[in-house]
């Protein structure tokens, strides 16, 4: 049996002495055609970060324009603004929120957590990455062609008739969809077949349960989006006549098809985020996760129920009240598994030993923001109140609380949590925490006012609200506050990446297990070698921290036998 110091020695010999997945082959070609899930994950992370900042650029334009009534920015007008908010939505959703955690962090972490050498289909994984890049190219092409002005929802008949580069953008979204589908396929098979001996389903880390539930949605819902986009392209190019009433079609059919994917899509976004939070809270509280089974099953429940509620986007679309009633009832059912998770996370912290590290700060921020955002979903699920707030700033605030306050914060939590593993470097924790606190405050300053003006009637996707000031003069003040918060918020995004990138140059070398996690990825070196593990680690309880003790010499945790 190896002694502690032997084990520590073995795990600690990393970047300086040995080769790892980052430096084993330095040629560009070895990255472009890599089959290594870790490299693919890192490349996805770089790409989605670009997507985040590109989307944030358009967000800045929106907020700057809305700060004052009338035309605020000199080059702005109705048409330009429409393109700006459409691009903001489409880029953020397709190039950041959807792929960031599953294809980025998930790719890196999933095989490691299974003690595996790679995903089930490494070439398919590479293909997912290449498809993603091609999708990005289409989006860039869309930008160069003047962008699109349909809203990210592409409602017919406007999306059929408008003269902007919709077909190019939809081709891009179509290709990105297949990137997502193949990722999901890969993760499902990997989880089924590459578990180590001894790791039953009930011993899977919750991150994997989350990614698995996400993958189910990816493979079932995304093809429906793909065919919908294809039909819109056919209608634009040939005039097929399925959605455009001028050609004999039915525009409400488009809405049903679109939301059948796009509602489950939001669960593609949030489920992996919740997986990250389960990991971070447990590890940084040094406590076994509470209610493991319920969290695992609630992920599957959310995946399933998420397919049944798409009609709540269509309460005022002209669909029958009966349909509205059914969808409203089902929508409330989805709230319960999410609530259960929040309670489980709090119970995990109970009597723990909570380390307020940067990842933990983001996890706490997640609970606050996603909790509030989720609760505001109650207004949208209830029929009477939805009539009032549908298509207003209220909805915008709600989904930003979920997507940015939820998925975004979890992404940052995951990045900070696994950064030492990914890069072998420790970041500046103090700067990270201050930045997180500032992000939290700025977020609320940005989005909370939008709830209030929204429920009072301020519509979304409005270039200007001058005509509203007669009855609601307070809107200007709320918008200015929101803009102030928004600009600071974007600055804190830079703070995250500056911190992480600086660590590559100035950061202390990271031990194998800086936080004391019990899942398998902490048993390989930081960063991992190309083939992950010399020997497959033994399956154990992923949340049992009993044998994991801090060793001040290496400033990390070791497993004592």
């Amino acid at each position, binding site marked *: 049996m190896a002694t502690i110091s032997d084990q520590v020695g073995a795990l600690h010999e990393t970047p300086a002495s040995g080769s790892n997945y980052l430096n*084993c*082959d330095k040629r560009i070609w*070895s990255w472009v*055609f*890599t*089959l*290594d899930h870790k490299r693919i994950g890192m490349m996805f992370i770089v790409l989605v970060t670009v997507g985040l900042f590109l989307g944030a650029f358009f967000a800045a334009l929106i907020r700057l324009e809305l700060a004052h009534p009338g035309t605020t920015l000199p080059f702005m007008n109705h048409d330009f603004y429409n393109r700006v908010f459409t691009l903001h939505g489409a880029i953020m959703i397709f190039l950041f929120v959807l792929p960031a955690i599953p294809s980025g962090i998930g790719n890196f972490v999933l095989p490691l957590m299974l003690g*595996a*050498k*790679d*995903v*089930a*289909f*490494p070439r*398919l994984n590479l293909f997912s990455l290449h498809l993603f890049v091609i999708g990005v190219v289409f989006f860039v092409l869309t930008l160069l062609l003047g962008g699109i002005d349909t809203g990210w929802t592409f409602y017919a008949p406007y999306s059929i008739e408008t003269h902007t580069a919709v077909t190019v953008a939809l081709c891009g979204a179509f290709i990105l969809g297949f990137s997502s*589908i193949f990722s999901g*396929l*890969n993760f*499902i*098979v990997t989880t*089924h*077949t*590459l578990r180590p001996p001894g790791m039953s389903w009930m011993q899977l880390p919750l991150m994997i349960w989350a990614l698995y539930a996400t993958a189910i949605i990816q*493979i*079932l*819902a*995304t*093809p*429906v989006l*793909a*065919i*919908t986009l*294809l*039909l819109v392209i*056919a209608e634009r*190019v*040939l*005039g*097929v*006549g*399925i959605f455009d009433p001028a*050609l*004999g*079609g*039915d525009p409400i*059919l488009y809405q049903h*098809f679109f939301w059948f994917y796009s509602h489950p899509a939001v669960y593609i976004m949030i489920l992996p985020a919740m997986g990250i939070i389960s990991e971070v809270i447990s590890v940084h509280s040094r406590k076994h996760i509470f209610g493991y089974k319920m969290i695992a099953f609630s992920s599957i429940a959310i995946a399933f129920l998420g397919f049944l509620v798409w009609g709540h986007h269509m309460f005022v679309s002209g669909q029958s009240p009966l349909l509205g009633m059914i969808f409203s009832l089902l929508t409330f059912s989805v709230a319960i598994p999410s609530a259960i998770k929040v309670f489980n996370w709090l119970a995990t912290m109970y009597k723990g030993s909570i380390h307020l590290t940067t990842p933990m700060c983001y996890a706490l921020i997640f609970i606050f923001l996603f909790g509030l955002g989720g609760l505001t979903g109650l207004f949208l699920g209830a029929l009477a109140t939805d009539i009032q707030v549908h298509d207003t700033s209220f909805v915008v605030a709600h989904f930003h609380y979920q997507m940015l306050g939820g998925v975004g914060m979890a992404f940052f939590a995951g990045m900070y949590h696994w950064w030492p593993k990914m890069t072998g470097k420790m970041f500046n924790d103090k700067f990270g925490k201050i930045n997180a606190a500032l992000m939290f405050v700025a977020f609320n300053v940005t989005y909370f006012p939008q709830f209030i003006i929204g429920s009072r009637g301020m519509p979304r996707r409005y270039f200007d609200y001058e005509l509203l000031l007669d009855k609601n003069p307070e809107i200007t003040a709320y918008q200015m506050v929101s803009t102030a918060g928004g600009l600071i918020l974007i600055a804190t995004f830079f703070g995250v990446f500056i911190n992480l990138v600086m660590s590559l140059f100035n950061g202390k070398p990271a031990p194998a297990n800086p936080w004391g996690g019990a899942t398998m990825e902490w048993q390989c070196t930081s960063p991992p070698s*190309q*083939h992950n593990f*010399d*020997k497959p680690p033994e399956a154990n309880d992923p949340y049992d921290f009993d044998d994991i003790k801090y060793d001040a010499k290496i400033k990390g945790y070791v497993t004592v036998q």
Partner: protein
Amino acid sequence: MSDKTHSGHEAGGHEHSRWLAHHFDTPQQQFFSVKLGMWIFLVTEILFFSGLFCAYAVYRRNYPEIFADGHHFLDTTMGAINTAVLIFSSLTMAWAVRAAQLSQKRTLIICLIITLACAFGFLGIKYQEYKAKWEHRLVPGQARLEKWFGVSESTGPITRGDLGFHPDREYIDKKIQKHSDRKLTQAELDERAKNLGPFFGIYFCLTGLHGFHVICGIIAITWLLIRSYQGHFSAEYVEPVDCVGLYWHLVDLIWIYLFPLLYLIH
């Protein structure tokens, strides 16, 4: 292409089969993974087509008048021949898989060739059908396609009027009148001609997407054929043949649903 090393295999020291990928421990694990992956892919394909079938169902329920006349313009005989051709090709494909499992290289190659021939036959008949429709201007957006391919009679730029359904009215009116038991007014004929638009939209989307999948199948089977010549497949390793076989059966199955819905029911 792989940048992986063999360093993970000192323990055990078993000889890795040429066909066993390095991240799998045993051929059984790989086989199971590949099968599961392929089935999941087929599920996504089914869902991909389901959107179109759903559109068909919604239109059929809400706008039945669209389907009143459409079938007159489809050649049921050709459709039936195509169905038989595809079913037969599924048989030869299944036979090919069996031959691979039994390491019967010659049988495998012959079956794959016959399957390919059937696939080309299917496309050939489809081409005839489409050609007939093109001649009578039954393709939505035909004017635009003609301008794109440079075969248009008019010389102007592409306008929004080129989109949509602008059929050869003489041909359509005559056919509809023929199948009607009383004399129809011009207004009625106009209405019924207009209703054909969404029908042909759905028809070309469904059969077009299916045809695209047949073409992809042809590429996949050709790839198998090449590898079969090279002797890659045997009892030890049949996964690619198996997977393409599954794909081909699905393509066949989709057509089996398509044919009655478009050609037979009215």
